[in-house]
């Protein structure tokens, strides 16, 4: 009998597909169930935020930046404000810095909780998704109480923050942290040692450290590959150098490590928020910044550690009220770029797992 004649075929995964977390299209060349080639096609969510920002004044850019990465809007606010502060050399008041750290870390927890839910959902377990969102709700309520919005906060401003926290914030925040810490046990009980989960994630989607660095992959994905690098510690911004916390690092660089690492990061973030709540000083929440903020001529690339990796903003100022150029760099952009180089070879179910654990969100890629 002769060899069976087989043929590769192309499957469009997306732009509307349950596992692509938005409108991303992956053109898969498949040999049966095996993925041979991946070609990401992006741009379905391109809103020209950079162009829009060029036509807005600096304070007006911040609501635009909220839309740049809406799962962790606080960090987009922070990275833009930080760039402006560095341009104009504004000193941020102590209390504002503490509030920023509290909000950023809470937002990181919220984002990782979404990651937990969506990753589990992509592997077919639907219940963890609801559990993750349930605890995220506690954090979102805290944000709403403080800044009035649940998703696009516009809270961190140039020179400080927009509003002081209400009186009941601190007790409620501590309570929420305790609840989340307690629920982490449930999360881990559901998935961590579950044999189905283990065989679905362990050894799947191995991303070597070399490849990760050369593709500019950053954040939890990079750390899961064994590269000990966290901008919060290694290029300190805000007041992260005052807190006592550990950078979580895993060695294998597979899906399971990326998942474990994020759960560990939730723990570390809880510890940072607790320390920040303890040390929260009284005082001013915003430096004096004119509504017609005009930074001097210059340029800056400021970056922070987002829950999806390095988030950066490059601003070039020509001395007017509007920036000459705003370039946003999101972690997902580079992670999606690296996907074709390590995601192939597995089955389509593996690709779903890899895509989920990269935690790509598309607004950050397309901008």
């Amino acid at each position, binding site marked *: 009998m002769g060899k069976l004649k087989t043929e590769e075929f192309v499957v469009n995964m997306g732009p509307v597909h349950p596992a692509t977390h938005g409108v991303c299209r992956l053109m898969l060349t498949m040999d049966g169930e095996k993925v041979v080639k991946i070609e990401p096609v992006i741009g379905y969510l391109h809103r020209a935020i950079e162009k829009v920002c060029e036509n807005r004044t600096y304070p007006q850019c911040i609501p635009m930046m909220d839309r740049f990465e809406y799962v962790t809007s606080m960090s987009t606010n922070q990275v833009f404000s930080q760039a402006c502060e560095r341009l104009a050399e504004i000193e941020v008041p102590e209390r504002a810095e503490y509030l920023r750290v509290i909000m950023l870390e809470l937002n990181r927890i919220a984002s990782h909780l979404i990651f937990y839910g969506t990753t589990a959902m992509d592997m077919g377990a639907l219940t963890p998704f609801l559990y993750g969102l349930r605890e995220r709700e506690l954090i979102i309520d805290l944000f709403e109480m403080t800044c009035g919005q649940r998703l696009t906060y516009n809270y961190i401003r140039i020179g400080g923050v927009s509003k002081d926290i209400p009186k009941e914030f601190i007790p409620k925040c501590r309570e929420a942290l305790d609840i989340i810490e307690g629920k982490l046990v449930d999360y881990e009980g559901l998935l961590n040692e579950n044999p189905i989960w283990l*065989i679905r994630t362990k050894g799947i989607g191995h991303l070597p450290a070399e490849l990760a660095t050369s593709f500019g992959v950053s954040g939890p994905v990079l750390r899961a590959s064994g590269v000990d690098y966290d901008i919060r510690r290694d290029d300190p911004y805000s007041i992260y150098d005052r807190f006592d916390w550990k950078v979580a690092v895993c060695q294998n660089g597979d899906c399971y490590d990326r998942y474990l690492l994020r759960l560990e990061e939730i723990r570390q973030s809880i510890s940072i928020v607790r320390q920040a709540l303890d040390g929260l000083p009284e005082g001013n929440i915003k430096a004096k910044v004119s509504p017609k903020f005009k930074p001097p001529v210059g340029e800056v690339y400021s970056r922070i550690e987002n829950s999806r990796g390095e988030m950066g903003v490059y601003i070039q100022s020509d001395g007017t009220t509007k920036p000459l150029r705003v370039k946003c760099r999101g972690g997902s952009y580079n992670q999606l770029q690296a996907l074709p180089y390590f995601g192939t070879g597995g089955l389509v179910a593996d690709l779903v797992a890899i895509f989920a654990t990269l935690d790509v969100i598309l607004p950050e890629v397309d901008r």
Partner: protein
Amino acid sequence: MSDNLGNLELIHVFYWLKELLLSTGLGEPYVTIVSYVVLGAVTFGVLALLALFLVWWERKIAAHIQQRFGPMRTGWHGWYQTIMDAVKLLQKEDVRVDKRDKFVFFWAPVVCFVAAFLAYVVMPFGNQLIVADLSIGILYVLAVTTFTVISLLMAGWGSNNKYALLGGMRSAAQVVSYEVPMVAAILTVIVYVGSLSMVDIVEAQSGLFINWFIFKLPFGPIAFIVYIIAATAEANRVPFDIPEAEQELVAGFNIEYSGMKFAMFFLAEFVNMFTVSAIAVTLFFGGWNGVFLPSWVWFLGKTFLVVLLLMMFRWTYPRLRVDQLMEFAWKFLVPLAFANLILGSIMKYLGWYW
């Protein structure tokens, strides 16, 4: 056992109906024909209602596991939600793919729907409450439930869609693999009973719950676990729902179906789930045997508990990958099931059981 409440047995209703028919003066063959038609209609109606109920129940269970409400708008806790859904699906446009295989595309849901109901011919719902006590009962069940896979393959092929085709292929591979351990697990029971008839199997377990095969057989629990795993795969439920794996194949084989055709697949899935649970109850939990309550209540109650177990599986576990699924079937379940069968047979031969 159930003599004290004997008049609550549903079978009396059917006897009464037959008496009524005979009193009209029809000849014996006509009475038989009419009564089987009536029986078929009643079984079909009851099962359709059961499927609708199961859909609602599953949504409620899922919602409560996830601390939501689930359907709440239609009636008390949304009890007629699925009926309204079915009505909505009936009214929907039947979208058809242009380049479909017309014949296959049309008949796939019908085959699926019919195959799902066929197994109930030999299902003992209660004491004497059975459409036909075939002497090859369980074999017949195994044969007709496998029809489902043909319908899924037809759906996958007829849709002219890559996702659907992958789903159909996956389902074929999966059902073929899981049929083997399932049969081996069922054989363990049959070796003890010495009969393929469903009624005989149930009657062999009469008496207290200690006589149920899950407790009575030397390796009853193992046989049950093998069976329930294989049954979950047979019914295409999480963690073995790879034919319609939502996050990979969007909806798998039924991706191109809409309206009532989709509803037929959907209801058939739930009927299948009920079928495998009912067989599990018949084989391992003593069927309609029980005290105080009428036999059909016992049967339904036990079946719903097994269904609940399947639902808990679905809302707890992640999905297996397709190759892992095969590996699990052939490298773990099949050896386990056959070892169980051989050991059980030896012990039966030696008489080491109670």
